């Protein structure tokens, strides 16, 4: 898709940045409220997955003991899904709280 000069100027703002760079910076420095809302959104999705697993624990455990390929497929998909949802949620929250609070303390001498 071709980006018009006007769109490019608008998205890059007053800085001389490419739209992709602008997008990265915007993503990196989203506001605290946006970060918290996004984080809580991902965590609530995780809660839904947890609810489904724990409310159907017997069926899940029966599936996991079938000793065929359905068991690893189910457990690995669930693990990746939960790690992604919960991990992204926690990451968003930590990014706008702890990471930002420690921004001035960054050390990297190597």
């Amino acid at each position, binding site marked *: 898709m071709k980006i018009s000069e006007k769109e490019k100027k608008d998205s890059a703002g007053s800085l001389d940045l490419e739209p992709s760079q602008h997008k990265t910076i915007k993503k990196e420095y989203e506001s605290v409220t946006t970060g918290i809302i996004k984080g809580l959104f991902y965590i609530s999705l995780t809660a839904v997955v*947890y609810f489904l*697993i*724990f409310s159907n*624990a017997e069926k*899940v*455990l029966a599936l*996991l*003991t*079938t*000793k*065929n*390929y359905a*068991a*690893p497929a*189910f*457990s*690995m998909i*669930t*693990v*990746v899904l*939960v*790690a*992604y949802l*919960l*991990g*992204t949620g*926690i*990451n968003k929250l*930590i990014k706008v709280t*702890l*990471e930002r*609070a*420690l*921004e*001035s*303390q*960054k*050390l*990297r*001498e*190597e």
Partner: protein
Amino acid sequence: MAGAVEIPAAAEAIKFLAMTPKTGLSLVGIGFVGGLLSGFLGSGGAFIMTPAMMSLGIPGIMAVAANITHKFGKAIMGSKKHGEFGNVDRKMGVVMIIALFAGVQVAVMMQKGVLQKLGPAGSNLYISLLFVAILTWVTLFMYRDIRRIQKGGSETGGSGGMAEKIRNLNIPPIIHFKVANVRTSLWLALLVGFATGFLAGSIGVGGFIGVPAMIYLLGVPTYVAAGTELFLAIFSGAQGAFLYSLYGYVDLRITLFLYVGSLLGVYIGAVGTRVVRGYQIKLVMTSVIAMVMLSRLVIVPKYLGEMGTIALSKGASDIISAVSNVFLFGSGLLGSSIILFWMFQALRRAKTEKAYQEGSVSVKA
């Protein structure tokens, strides 16, 4: 640990645990300590999480299965986070993984041989002695390096001795690892991968060897070694999760409780690597490794007693096991406490600096 998995032939019968709120909370806590150590050091979760779960009444094989299944997802997210900070050298990881799996296979074959010749107690003794020998060497080596840095030596400077001689061998082909900013022999990278795999297959804690080996033999910065180790753990975690699930040993509820604590811990640990110096990561790692080594050293008489080499009463054997557990769990708690303490200190410094800056701005105004 970045090692592969061998499912025991005669595994325990499956007995799913009754999940109480207390068990759930305990699993979250265990996950947090393991995650924090993994995020900060790149390894160090497995050695404490498995015995801790077993102390909750979870059968050994299910504790291992839950740990390795949870490691798969944790390593994906942990290495993604380290990747954001530029701590993961994927090229190095891919080179090392091939040799790592070969190392694991050789170790497993040797383990089987020892088990057949000496029996279970002899096998435990072999593992403990290997643990003590290797971890003592790593502890002394890292301690000497930390002392050198504390006395004003460079963080990346030569550690001297055999490691530097090996590093300078430069046998072609030479590969440039861009993220780690290291030029090293392909053979050396493969050797490190093989050694990590061999020790992962022998004593179950490959990361304790992999991270120091990457730092001292390949010259990789401490942060990148930690991040790359987590990247390697994705592959061993995937293999383990697949095999243990196929054999029906995975209780997904345990894994999900572990995640709540461990993902929080792994992110906090990864952020922690940004606010400390490289030698501080080495300091925590050395402390943890030294205590794990002590826990294995203390338990040697128990195995000698089981083999009939020395006479040991049941009471004495129980005391030895308890002391060994104190060192083992103490290592995790000590490591986590140091990391959290440094992060708390960094937060306080940040607040003080912010208040000072705001104060000076208002004075100017």
